C-alpha cells in the first residue's frame, strides 16, 4: 500500500489534568480509507486523545494537523465542520427528544417552511437502516429504547453527515454479536469509500476483525503504531500492559455444572414475577454459590428482569421468596435490605455519582444500608476503599478524585466495588465488564467466580455471549421479554448453541433442542 498523506496527524500531544498527566507527548496518525484502532488499558488516555482531537479538551502542548494543515478546534461543532464526526464513549443524546430528532439534530432537512419533519424522519430512518434499525419508529422518544439501541442511534447520528473522519469510542461495548457484525459491515463500506475511521474497543476479536492499523497507548504515553496483521494478540497485550500476561490463558474452559442439589430451598425463588409492558411473568430460582447467566438478544428483557429482582422497578405480578420466606421487593432499598446488589448497565445515568469522590462512590451503598445516622468511620471507609481499589486496580489510585474524572473503565470498576462492598448474597451484574480492558476483565471474571465459590448467588448479564457461557453454571434464555428456557451449562455448550436456540424459538425446532427442564426430575 503506498501511503497517502494522513488526514489527521497529531504530534506531541500532552494534556494534564490536576494530578494526572493524561497524555504525555503522544503522536497519532490517521489515514483515509483505514480503520485505525486505539488500544490501551483503562485510563491509558484513549478517550482523552479523542477529545483532544475534537476540541473538547484544550491541548497543553502539541499540534493537530488536519489534511496537512494545523488546526485549532474548539469543540465538537468545529470538529464537525472540519469533517470529523464523533461518537463519544458515553452515549450523549437527548432523552427528551425522539429517536429521529436525535439522529438528525443539527442536520434537519429544511424546506420553505422551516424544518420538514416528514423528510427529516425519513432521513433518520435511512440512517438507522444502515445499521439494521430501519424498523425503529423514529417518532418515539429516545428514552423508550434500551441503552444498547441508544448506542446504535448515536452511531447512526455520526453517519448522517458525510465526514472524512469517523471516530467511534467503544461503540460496541453493549452490543451483541449481530449488531457488531452489522456495524462492521457499515464501517467497511465507509472505509472503502475512503473514510478514515478511528475505533476504540477492548474486544480483541473485534479489533482483529476490523482494524488495519493500531496505535497503542500506555499510561498516557505513546507506545507505538503497528499494522494489525503484523502484531499478534500476545504481543499486543504485552505492549498494552507492559508485561506478558498469563491471566488470559487461565480463562479456558466453561465452568462445570456441579451436581447441585436443586431440591433445597433456593436463596431466591421468584414465581411469575413480571411487569406489564416490560417482562412477562417469569419463574426463576437462584441458589447460593451459583452463577446464573441471562442470555438473549438486544432488548430481550434481560436488564428488565434483573431490575425486577432488585426492586429497581416495581413488579406488578408474581411473588418472591427469599430462603423460603415470602418477601416484597419493590424498591432498591428493599433489595439492599435483602442483601441483593445490582450493578447497572447504565453507569453514567444510574451508576456513578459524578461529582462525588471515588471514596464516596465506593461507600455509598454500604452507607445507604446503614442509614444516615450511623456514618462509617474514617477507618471503615479506608478499609473499604483500600480493599476494592486494590482488588479492582482502580487507577489513578487516588480515592479523593471526583469519580467523573476517571476513565470509563475505571468508573465501572468503582461501581463494581460499591456493590461488592455491601457483601451481597445475591449479586446481579448487568454488563459488568462493559468498557473494561482485557486484563481487568479477566480479573473481574475471576473474582465473580470466587464470590460464587464463597456462597454468593450471582446473576451475570453480558452482551458478550462467550463470557456468559464461560462463567455461568446455568443460563436463562430470554426472548421478547419472556423466559424461553434454561440451559444447564456443560463443556459441550457453546455460545453458538445459545444463539441457535434463540433463533429457533417459536419455530418447532425449538421444542426438541437441548433446553432442559431444571425441575423436571421431581
Amino acid at each position, binding site marked *: 500500500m503506498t501511503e497517502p498523506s494522513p488526514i489527521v496527524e497529531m504530534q506531541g500531544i500532552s494534556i494534564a489534568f490536576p494530578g494526572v498527566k493524561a497524555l504525555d507527548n503522544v503522536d497519532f496518525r490517521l489515514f483515509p480509507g483505514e480503520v485505525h484502532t486505539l488500544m490501551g488499558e483503562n485510563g491509558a488516555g484513549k478517550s482523552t486523545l479523542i477529545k483532544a482531537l475534537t476540541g473538547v479538551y484544550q491541548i497543553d502542548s502539541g499540534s493537530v494537523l488536519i489534511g496537512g494543515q494545523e488546526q485549532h478546534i474548539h469543540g465538537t461543532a468545529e470538529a464537525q465542520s472540519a469533517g470529523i464526526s464523533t461518537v463519544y464513549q458515553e452515549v450523549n443524546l437527548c432523552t427528551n427528544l425522539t429517536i429521529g430528532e436525535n439522529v438528525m439534530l443539527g442536520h434537519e432537512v429544511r424546506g420553505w417552511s422551516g424544518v420538514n419533519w416528514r423528510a427529516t424522519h425519513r432521513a433518520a430512518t435511512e440512517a438507522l437502516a444502515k445499521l439494521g434499525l430501519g424498523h425503529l419508529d423514529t417518532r418515539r422518544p429516545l428514552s423508550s429504547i434500551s441503552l444498547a439501541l441508544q448506542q446504535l442511534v448515536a452511531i447512526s447520528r455520526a453517519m448522517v453527515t458525510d465526514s472524512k473522519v469517523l471516530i467511534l469510542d467503544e461503540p460496541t461495548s453493549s452490543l451483541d454479536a449481530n449488531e457488531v457484525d452489522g456495524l462492521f459491515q457499515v464501517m467497511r463500506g465507509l472505509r472503502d469509500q475512503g473514510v478514515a475511521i478511528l475505533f476504540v474497543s477492548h474486544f480483541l476479536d473485534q479489533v482483529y476483525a476490523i482494524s488495519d492499523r493500531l496505535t497503542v497507548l500506555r499510561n498516557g504515553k505513546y507506545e507505538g503504531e503497528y499494522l494489525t496483521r503484523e502484531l499478534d494478540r500476545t504481543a499486543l497485550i504485552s505492549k498494552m500492559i507492559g508485561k506478558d500476561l498469563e491471566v488470559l490463558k487461565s480463562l479456558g474452559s466453561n465452568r462445570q455444572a456441579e451436581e447441585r442439589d436443586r431440591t433445597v430451598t433456593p436463596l431466591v425463588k421468584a414465581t411469575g414475577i413480571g411487569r406489564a409492558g416490560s417482562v412477562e411473568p417469569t419463574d426463576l430460582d437462584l441458589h447460593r454459590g451459583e452463577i446464573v447467566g441471562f442470555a438473549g438478544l438486544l432488548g430481550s428483557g434481560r436488564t428488565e428482569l434483573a431490575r425486577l429482582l432488585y426492586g*429497581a422497578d416495581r413488579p406488578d405480578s408474581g411473588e418472591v421468596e427469599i430462603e423460603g420466606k415470602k418477601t416484597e421487593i419493590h*424498591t*432498591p*432499598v428493599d*433489595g*439492599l435490605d435483602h442483601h441483593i446488589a*445490582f450493578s*447497572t448497565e447504565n453507569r453514567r*445515568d*444510574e*451508576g*456513578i*455519582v*459524578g*461529582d*462525588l469522590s471515588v471514596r*464516596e462512590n465506593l461507600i*455509598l*451503598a454500604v*452507607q*445507604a*444500608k*446503614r*442509614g*444516615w*445516622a*450511623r*456514618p*462509617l468511620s474514617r477507618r471503615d471507609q479506608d478499609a473499604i476503599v483500600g480493599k476494592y481499589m486494590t482488588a479492582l486496580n482502580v487507577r489513578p489510585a487516588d480515592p479523593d478524585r471526583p469519580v467523573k474524572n476517571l476513565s470509563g473503565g475505571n468508573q465501572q470498576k468503582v461501581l463494581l466495588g*460499591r456493590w461488592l462492598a455491601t457483601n451481597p448474597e445475591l449479586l446481579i451484574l448487568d454488563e459488568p465488564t462493559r468498557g473494561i480492558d482485557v486484563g481487568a476483565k479477566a480479573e473481574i471474571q475471576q473474582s465473580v467466580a470466587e464470590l460464587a465459590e464463597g456462597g454468593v448467588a450471582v446473576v451475570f448479564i453480558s452482551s458478550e455471549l462467550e463470557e456468559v457461557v464461560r462463567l455461568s453454571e446455568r443460563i436463562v434464555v430470554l426472548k421478547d421479554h419472556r423466559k424461553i428456557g434454561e440451559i444447564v451449562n456443560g463443556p459441550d455448550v457453546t455460545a453458538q448453541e445459545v444463539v441457535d436456540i434463540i433463533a429457533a424459538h417459536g419455530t418447532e425446532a425449538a421444542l426438541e433442542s437441548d433446553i432442559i427442564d431444571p425441575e423436571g426430575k421431581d
Partner: protein
Amino acid sequence: MRRQFFWGIIAILLLLLVNVLKDPSFLSVSVNSTNGNLVGNLVDILRASAPILMIAVGMSLVVATGGIDLSVGSIMVVAGAVSMEFLKANGQSGGVALGALGAALAVSALLGVVNGILVSVVGLQPFISTLVMMLAGRGLAKVITSGQNTAASNGPFRWIANGYVIGLPVVVLLAVVVVLLVALVVRRSALGLMIEAIGVNPKASRMAGIKPRGLLITVYALSALLAGIAGVFATASVMTVDVSRTGYQLELDAILAVVIGGASLAGGKFSMGGAVVGALLIATLDKTIVFLGVSSSATPAFKAAVIIVLCLLQSERVRNLFTQRRAARARAPKESVTA
C-alpha cells in the same frame, strides 16, 4: 470551591474598606460603659446577618439536593405571626416566651414537611412547590393575625434578638450555635453525603439504596425550621410582625448567599462555610448601602453592580486571566534556565 468563597471574603473586606474610607472609625468596636456590651458597626452587621445566616444555611442544603426553597421568607413571617399572637394572648413570662418559640418553630417545620411531601411524594418541582408555599405562607400569616401587624411585649422573647451575653448580642451567639449544630449534624452523620448524592444524580442514588423521600422531607423541614428561627430573630428585634414585609424577598438573599458561597443551583456539593460567607456579605452590603447613604432609588443598581463584579471574579474565565499572568511570570524564568 474554596477559591469561590475566597472572593466572597475579599468582597466583604472591600466593602468594609469602602466604609472605612467614608468614616475611619467604622470598624471600631467599643464597650458600652454602662452595661459592658460591645457596640459598633461590626456588631450591627453580625446582628443583621443572623436571620440571613439561618435561611442561607437551610437553603444550602436544599440547593444541594438540586432543589430550591422559595418559601423561606414566607415561613419567616408565619413564625413571626405565630409567636406574636401567642405572646399577645399569653403574657409576659419566660415560659410563655418558650411556648411562643416552640409554637413558631413547630408550625414552621410543619410547613417545611409539607414542602418536602410536595416535592418528594407528590413529585412536584421544588420551584413550584415552594412557590405555592411562598404565596400561601404569607396568606397564612395574614390569617393568623387577621391581617394586622401584630405587636406584643415579652421581655424574654425580646431578649433573643436584643439581649447581650458576656457583651455579645444573643442573636449572634444563637446563630453561631445553630450553624455549628447543623454543620455538625450534617457533616458528622452521613446526611451530607446523601444530600449531595441525591443532588448530583438522583437516579443513581436511588439505585444505591438511598431513600430520597425521607431525606428530602428532612431537608425541607430543616430549611423551614431554620427559616422559623430567622423569623423569630426578625420579629423579636422589633416585637412586631409585619405581615406584608417581614421576610419579604429574603429567599432571594438566601439564594444569592448560597451561590456566592460557591454552590451550584443544579445541586451537588455544598459548603456551609460558603453559605456563611455569602450571608455575611449580603448583610455587609445592605449595611454599606445605608451607611454610604446611597439613595433609595439607586440601591438595587448598587446591589446589582456588586453581584455582577463578584460573579465575574468567581468565573473561571476571569480567574484564568489572573492565573495565566501569574503562570506566565512563574514559567518565564524556568524556561530561560532550561533553554
